[in-house]
């Protein structure tokens, strides 16, 4: 087990190192941040002074060296624009994104699983066909378009909900949260829906497939024959057995939303890390973009590592196979 763990860990570190290199040189190739940061009215001497202060006059391999030595010490650099450590900047925006992601996933679960089960239990009923048609629309229309439509409908025409922004927040242990205030919740609903629609469509389809399969199994028939109420049969015996693939996909999707809620955050001016990423790319704020990408890679490497370790505990064959 220990050998396996060490091997997986060193693989993870290798992936991080390769990503760091790709990310750094990729960004280096995009352009020179000074051309955007500095006011064009500045004289050539001032422009050069800024370039030197940011260390951008050094050859690329020296800059890479600084970056690597910082990285090893857990220092991802300081934002050129905001004058704050890049990591701190990202962490300060993380609560907003997490809130959005978790509410979105929650909506997807709460509506997706029952709808999928209904469609699976009565596949030929008209409402089931409607649900399935809806789910096709849900995952085949672009995310930004769905966002704009939500805004047009609920904010512009009906005027029920605000079109964007975060609204009032309450500090809980120093972390600003918006779902605890009415105003904040109002601001949260539309972007969360925007996140939820695609996931909901996915869950509906997964649940339906599982339900129609499980409903025909002997143990369901037996449960019915025992005289259990339909609610209990569906709510316990069917539900439990279709949840495994749904949970697996949800786990992956949650990671995806946290890392890449860029579109939703841009359309709804939601101040999370996705919007920070887009703004930073626009301004070529290299340290923030690099830190963001490294953090994302780290997140996924860690998720995969944990999943693999769990697998190896649950199923020793994985370990033995890998050991050959």
């Amino acid at each position, binding site marked *: 087990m220990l050998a396996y763990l060490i091997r997986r860990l060193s693989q993870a570190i290798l992936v991080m190192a390769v990503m760091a290199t790709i990310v750094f040189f990729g960004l280096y190739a*995009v*352009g*020179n*941040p000074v*051309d*955007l*940061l*500095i*006011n*064009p*009215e*500045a*004289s*050539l*001497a*001032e*422009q*050069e*002074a*800024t370039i030197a*202060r940011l260390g951008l006059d050094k050859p690329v391999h020296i800059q890479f060296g600084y970056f690597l030595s910082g990285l090893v010490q857990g220092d991802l650099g*300081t934002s050129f*624009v*905001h*004058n*704050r450590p890049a990591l701190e900047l990202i962490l*300060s*925006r993380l609560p907003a994104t997490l809130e959005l992601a978790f509410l979105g996933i929650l909506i997807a679960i709460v509506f997706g699983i029952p709808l999928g089960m209904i469609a699976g239990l009565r596949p030929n009923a008209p409402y089931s066909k409607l649900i399935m048609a809806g789910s096709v629309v849900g995952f085949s229309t672009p995310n930004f378009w769905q966002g*704009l439509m939500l*805004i*047009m409908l609920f*904010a*512009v025409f*009906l*005027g*029920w*909900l*605000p*079109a*964007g*922004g*975060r*609204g009032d927040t309450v500090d809980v242990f120093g972390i600003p949260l918006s779902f605890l205030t*009415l*105003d904040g*919740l*109002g*601001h949260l*609903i539309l972007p969360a829906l925007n996140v939820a629609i695609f996931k909901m469509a996915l869950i509906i389809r997964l649940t339906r497939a599982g339900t129609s399969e499980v409903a025909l199994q002997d143990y369901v028939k037996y449960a019915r024959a025992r005289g259990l109420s339909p609610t209990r049969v569906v709510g316990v015996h069917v539900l439990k057995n279709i949840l495994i693939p749904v949970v697996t996909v949800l786990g992956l999707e949650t990671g995806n939303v946290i890392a890449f809620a860029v579109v939703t955050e*841009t*359309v*709804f*001016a939601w*101040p999370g890390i996705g*919007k*920070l990423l887009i*703004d930073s*790319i*626009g*301004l070529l704020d290299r340290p923030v973009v690099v830190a963001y990408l490294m953090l994302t890679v780290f997140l996924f490497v860690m998720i995969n590592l944990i999943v693999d370790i769990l697998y190896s505990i649950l199923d020793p064959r994985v370990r033995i196979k890998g050991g050959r």
Partner: protein
Amino acid sequence: MNKLTFVAAVVSIGAVTQPAFAQSLTAAFASEPSSVDPLYHNLGPNNATRKHMFESLVGEDANLAIVPELAESWSSSDDGLTWTFKLRQGIKFHDGGDFTARDFLYTACRIPNVPNSPSSMEGFIGTAETITAPDDFTIEVTTAAPYPLLLTDFASFGVISASANGHEGPVEYVKGGCPGIEGYLDSNAYNDGSATVGTGPYKFVSFTPGESVILARNDDYWGDAPHWETITIRPITNDGARVAALLAGDVDVIEKPPVQDLERLRGDERVNVVQGPSSRVIYLHFDHEGEPSPGIEGTDGKNPMKDVRVRKAISLAINRPLIVDRIMGGLAVPARQLVPDFMRGTDPAIALEEPDLEEAKRLLAEAGYPDGFKLVIGTPNDRYINDAQIAQAVAQMLTRAGIETEVDAMTASVFFSRRNNYEFSLYLAGWGSSGAGMASPLRALVASQNKDKGLGGTNRGRYSNAELDAVIEEALSTVETETHDALLRKASNIVVDDVAILPLHFEVTPWALRAGLTMEPRADQHTVLTTVRPSN
């Protein structure tokens, strides 16, 4: 929750989020200030935001003419080397402290010393050799050589409070380091509000990056009291989202409404569109040096842009009024000089040019290109109003004249890097002039690149003309207004005659407001909310 209570809850949330119109104003900016520290980053959104809280020694009105602000009056000595400013008395900072000459000296001390400034304001104070305060309400500035743009420079930064920055007692300004001041606060002390103490019409309340800047009315303001009790500035970078926020009533004012939506917004009774001329010129810059020049084919390695006949031909081939009409939807004014005529230094005798395709072809043939050549225009596609479309139109017009032209459009961050590496033989860009008028583009865009003299900072066409340089340098050392302006006019004529650079048009800046509100458009395109008023 049953269905009815759910709907009720949603409706009540909606009701809560409707802004209370009477006394608070919310505006959406297209880009976010990187800090509320007025001296940290010389950038459009930062400078627009600071104008609400921090005032300058002298101000710029909507047409960028210099007006009194913290200083009531000023004068310059006969030799042009000494400037004397008389300060307005009785002005209070937001923390109740008195504004005196000491605060201006402290501001001048901090400018070159703002920690980690990405774009320093140093240039605005660098020409001053000494700054002294003979008494609390007088400031004397001396320069090494006569310098006519001192007022414009001093209008470009906000004055901070010495006491709020932790400095008590007198301040002595010495260029290169003020004695007795150990360290300076960094921008974070401003972003959390502890040092954000100005004299302006609004006081700092909070700054949440990515979310909002909230300001409250300064009831002790010396000037006209602003209408709104609180102001919220929200960054909404996405064009569609900004328009939606306005239509939904989330915000009352938006800047940079997308041009393709303007017609619809004008027709919408919930919206009032306000627009005004800006000082921003959209121009084409030629590569005056590279040989062979990138993107040019069919000239045997020669750079045709170095031939004034080719430049004139390009100018004649372009139909500016057509671009203004068809592509800019009227949101532009055709240009032949580098600043609009309401600013100083323009020559009213220089007329707009009539497009003339035949003459353009004749000039090309005369220059030795009867069959034209191939050309690539570089342009950003997300920086100026309809930038890529303008380049596309120019390309078609040039192709008609025989210069087969392609457009290479890209995002601004890539474009500016490539431009600064001289990767284009012809590129489209824009220049927003300060109150210096013609002097601003002259010294930055067409003066020969010269690091020691601080000239040609954005002359990425590497144009160089000794005669023009001499006139510009003379203008930049002539304080007397009439002579200074005459020299600027002379320089403008040289630029036009030699087609050193090719101005296309001046942008007209639109703002969209909730119906019933109006505001004063500014030529520097800054959104300053103190001018937003109910229209009746």
